[in-house]
């Protein structure tokens, strides 16, 4: 409670939308704001802002900041500021996406992100990979309604066709249909290793581990998915060893090191997805930042 009262960014919850957006934009560009904010010597403004608001999960402030950042992005794109040529504006856009990626946003902004993800490849951002930034933000903010889930799954599967976006697509899929993401992993590992230079798998497998948590069924499905690709399985095991999986999740480690298992023990990911996971999605739409999919302790 004390932190909320003393938070220097509470001003963003009291100012009207337009002024709050202008305040945020000025602050992120290190321009003077009132009341002034003293950013620690070793941090950028966006880093200090995140350190102050990210952990306030029960406060209005994180959602307010994320939503304002989303509106500023929409405004900047409408004005063509994403186009090549203005490095400072492109950097400002990157900073706004950093906030969106880390903080909750309103339904309006979530819808805007989805629209942008669908049309983003058409917008030329030059050095600024607008499509990548949008996909990364969409991972957490996707809110498919019942009946829209298949379309969302199809969207991510399509994005995974492009190796540049495949890892982010797998993350997106893990959030709404983990078995579907598992199905894509062996091929992703093969392509990532065949790329020149080879693409690292570390962060992707970290997310896989985080999302699968303690679900034996999902780990079993992951193990089964690699039955036909033993060399990729070895790579994945090595990567998980570097992530200290054995110490942190011995059950998952053991499953990964079992001999070849029966195929698809969860009975088809679409079937599972259409039942239990849909409930998760519904709850996630209401509280997208809760711990619904968190690994069990």
């Amino acid at each position, binding site marked *: 409670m004390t932190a909320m009262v003393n938070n220097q960014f509470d001003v963003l919850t009291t100012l009207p939308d337009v002024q709050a957006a202008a305040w945020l934009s000025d602050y992120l560009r290190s321009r003077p704001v009132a009341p002034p904010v003293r950013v620690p*010597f070793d941090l950028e403004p966006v880093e200090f802002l995140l350190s102050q608001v990210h952990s306030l999960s029960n406060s209005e402030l994180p959602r307010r900041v994320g939503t304002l950042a989303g509106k500023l992005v929409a405004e900047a794109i409408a004005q063509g500021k994403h186009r090549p040529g203005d490095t400072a504006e492109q950097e400002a856009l990157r900073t706004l996406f950093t906030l969106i990626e880390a903080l909750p946003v309103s339904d309006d902004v979530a819808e805007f992100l989805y629209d942008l993800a669908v049309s983003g490849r058409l917008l030329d951002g030059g050095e600024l*990979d607008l499509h*990548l930034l949008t996909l990364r933000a969409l*991972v957490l903010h996707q809110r498919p309604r019942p009946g829209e889930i298949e379309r969302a799954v199809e969207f991510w599967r399509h994005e995974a066709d492009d*190796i540049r976006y495949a*890892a982010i697509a797998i993350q997106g899929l893990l959030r709404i249909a983990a078995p579907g993401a598992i199905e894509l992993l062996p091929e992703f590992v093969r392509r990532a290793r065949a790329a020149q230079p080879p693409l690292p798998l*570390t*962060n992707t497998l970290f997310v896989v581990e985080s999302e699968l948590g303690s679900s034996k069924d999902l780990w079993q499905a992951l193990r089964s998915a690699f039955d036909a690709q033993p060399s990729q399985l070895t790579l994945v095991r090595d990567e998980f060893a*570097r992530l200290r999986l054995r110490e942190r999740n011995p059950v998952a480690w053991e499953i990964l090191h079992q001999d070849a298992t029966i195929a698809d023990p969860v009975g088809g990911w679409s079937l599972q997805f259409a039942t239990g996971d849909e409930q998760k999605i519904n709850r996630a739409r209401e509280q997208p930042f809760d711990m619904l999919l968190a690994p069990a302790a």
Partner: protein
Amino acid sequence: MDLEAIAENHFGVDAKARVAAWMAELDADLEGWTGASHIRGENNLQSHDEGRQAAIRLVNELRSRPPGDPVNWYFATITGSNLACKGPKAADDLLDDLCKVTSGWMVWNRLRRRTAPDDTPALRDSARLMNWLVNVVCGPAYLDALDPSAIVSGKVPAVFSTFLRDRDAQLPAGTSATECYKVVGLDPRDPPEPCVLLKYRTSQVGPVIVPTAFDAGTHTHFLPSAAGARYGTTKNLATADGSGGVREVVVPPFPVSRMMEPEFIGA
């Protein structure tokens, strides 16, 4: 360092007036006052040619400075005119492994992969950030988890660094992040946040240099080094009189690929 005298000697009285006006603007600004104090207390830049040239370059830039925003102009000029890391070399017998205590948010924002193909984990909650820092960034896979070409840089952009050999004495393993921040002269975080110890070798990131006013910018806890100092210091915030402090040097910005495995400090 008498910047006004340097201005008058090299560019005449108009330049001196420009410098005086800028320093007055800095003095009137909460942050700027610190930067102006560092400049007045600077003792080492004039002692060697590269430092003297850096001071002259700053004055030259000041001659055409647009009015207003004195602090941001200073930061932009230090970076744009390459004024950082222009102090004398630190003493050779100090050269050793270096480290820097830094915020987990800084690592996530500046050192992670940012361009396609990208596999940066989405931050669903603070626990996910913590897990990523502990198990991925501060582990053997750190060079795969981060962008090897991302630049480790300070704000101005010299990288303030502590000797690793001093670390055991000043902030041994198990020391809380709050204490670590204090010992290296940074304000403790409120609320606490996870922090990471970046480690690197002088042979990979050097040269190692005595920090000057230009490196410190508006660093609130920087102490201007005495003339001929072998290294710099920042105030040890744990001592009431601020007379303590750890030894600090600066190095130029360097890519992540030159770092050793980072160490998780905690929150």
